[in-house]
């Protein structure tokens, strides 16, 4: 198939496209609408399947029942408690994990020796499952908030670290040389050239890390929590209430998507300079 616009023949050239002036809100709205199609279809199909009896209610209750559950949690005030405590834990853990990953990742990405000494250990730790960390963290830090937040930070750390190291090691030598010409110290070089150049990769890492933060929260809340979405999930499983389990999964999905949308927006804002397909005039 030959692209139409490539031929020099009357009538085959695509007629000129006008730059749509109705950008902004309208486009955001359209994106949102498109993004909602699939989830809504899935929910409807699920509801119908449940009503018709394809899904046994004690295994997979209908969305309407889940919604009722969530509303009842909202009414008795426990919803806010679960959500806010989990959100706080994830955000704190995310902040700490990201900060650690930036510092260590910058050192490892920049200094060959640091990489050789530190990287193998981190790569080995990276594949240790969250559940395996739980007893170790209880041992080291007890069952208070610090150990919960640290565990989440560990989960966040690895993808951010990995992406930042890869990002730094992929920075164009040509740009680094510009910094060297201006006699930047390694710290300045990192701050003024390497990190901005590695930013796209860094943000991807943050998004990946945030996802892991949400996952690690369950393990974290196995450490003596009495509130939170992860707690809710485990209690739901332990008390055999699929509506609680699925309500908590749904809340995980919604909060995860929400926090990710925030990062995506930051990505969009801070990568406007990229000469990529997305940033066409």
């Amino acid at each position, binding site marked *: 198939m030959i692209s139409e616009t490539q031929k020099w023949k009357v009538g085959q050239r695509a007629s000129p496209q006008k730059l749509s002036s109705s950008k902004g809100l309208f486009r955001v709205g359209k994106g949102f609408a498109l993004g909602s199609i699939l989830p809504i279809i899935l929910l409807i199909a699920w509801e119908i399947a449940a009503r018709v009896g394809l899904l*046994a209610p*004690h*295994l997979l209750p209908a969305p309407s029942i889940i919604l009722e559950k969530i509303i009842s949690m909202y009414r008795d005030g426990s919803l806010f408690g679960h959500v806010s405590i989990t959100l706080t834990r994830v955000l704190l853990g995310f902040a700490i994990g990201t900060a650690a990953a930036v510092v260590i990742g910058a050192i490892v990405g920049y200094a060959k020796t640091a990489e050789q000494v530190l990287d193998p250990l981190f790569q080995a730790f990276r594949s240790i499952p969250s559940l395996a960390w*739980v*007893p170790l963290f*209880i*041992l080291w830090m*007890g*069952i208070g908030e610090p150990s919960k937040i640290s565990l989440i930070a560990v989960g966040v750390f690895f993808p951010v670290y990995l992406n930042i190291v890869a990002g730094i090691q992929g920075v164009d030598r040509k740009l680094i040389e510009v910094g060297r010409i201006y006699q930047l110290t390694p710290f300045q070089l990192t701050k003024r050239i390497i990190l901005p150049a590695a930013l796209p990769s860094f943000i991807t890492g943050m998004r990946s890390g945030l996802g892991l933060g949400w996952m690690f929260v369950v393990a974290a809340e*196995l450490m*003596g*929590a*009495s509130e939170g979405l992860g707690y809710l999930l*485990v*209690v*739901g*499983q*332990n*008390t*055999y*209430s699929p509506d*609680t389990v699925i309500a908590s999964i749904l809340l995980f999905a919604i909060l995860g998507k929400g926090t990710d949308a925030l990062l995506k927006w930051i990505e969009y804002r801070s990568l406007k300079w990229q000469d990529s397909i997305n940033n066409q005039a």
Partner: protein
Amino acid sequence: SSSAKEGEKPEKIRLDYAFYSPTSLALKKFGWAEETFKKEGIEVEWIQSQGSNKALEFLNSDSVDFGSTAGAAALIAKDKGAPIESVYIYSQPEWTALVAKDGSPIKDVKDLKGKKVAATFGTDPHIFLLRALADAGLSAKDVQIVNLQHADGANALLKGQVDAWAGLDPHMARTEVESGAQYIYRNPDFNTYGTLNVRSEFAKNHPEQVEQVIELYEKARKWTLENPEEAAKLLSEEAGIKEDVAKKQLERNNFSEPVPGSQHEKAISAAGEVLQTEEIVKKDTDIKKLVSELINPKYAEKVIKK
């Protein structure tokens, strides 16, 4: 708190509560512990245990002073060196049994030969299954034990993924109530009791407080016995389960023998032997000795005689 020296009062007592220990829920709900210890200037902290394994983890890592577990779980941990002792029996629960789906051809333990049975390794249902099999003249090798978490086991049973399930409450009560699952085999004596454990170090340093806690548990036990309706309601509210399920669960709890005694030792020893053949408890362990090290009736005897 825990580092306080012998004879001195602790600054803080850390108690656990769990949905599988209804008395602990009552105790927490009414704030009796806070009341008692406030007078002495001791703080009380409540920590929730999601299961015996978590309670033991907390005990081991000095995160709680008292933890509620199944007797067998405490035994396995003790065998691995956990510095704990069981000082009180909060109930004799019949929380596990063998379950098959409604209409299943399996009616008897003998029918399980060659079938798939779901159980969570190392937990009371697993021990129960092994003992039931041994009782019926079968061994673990005659069936296919599928290691699934309790909730997943229930689901797998209902979806027909396994033929039978060594169930645990409240999952079991719920499958019974909601989908008419059948019992293949029940035997309250094969359940290993719910034991309240204390860290040995705490018991050694603060024997008085151990007695006080037992006293409080006694108070809660009596309340539960006297108010079964309200206890069921409390359980259903706290754990977020339906009231009829909670009632069923409570009915299966026998709160009559709080002082650790010979019948408890016997039941736990029997579990220990099965565990030893499965190599979950070390082969060279002297079960009798281990059980007597674990079970310490001294405090309860003193309190309850009084």
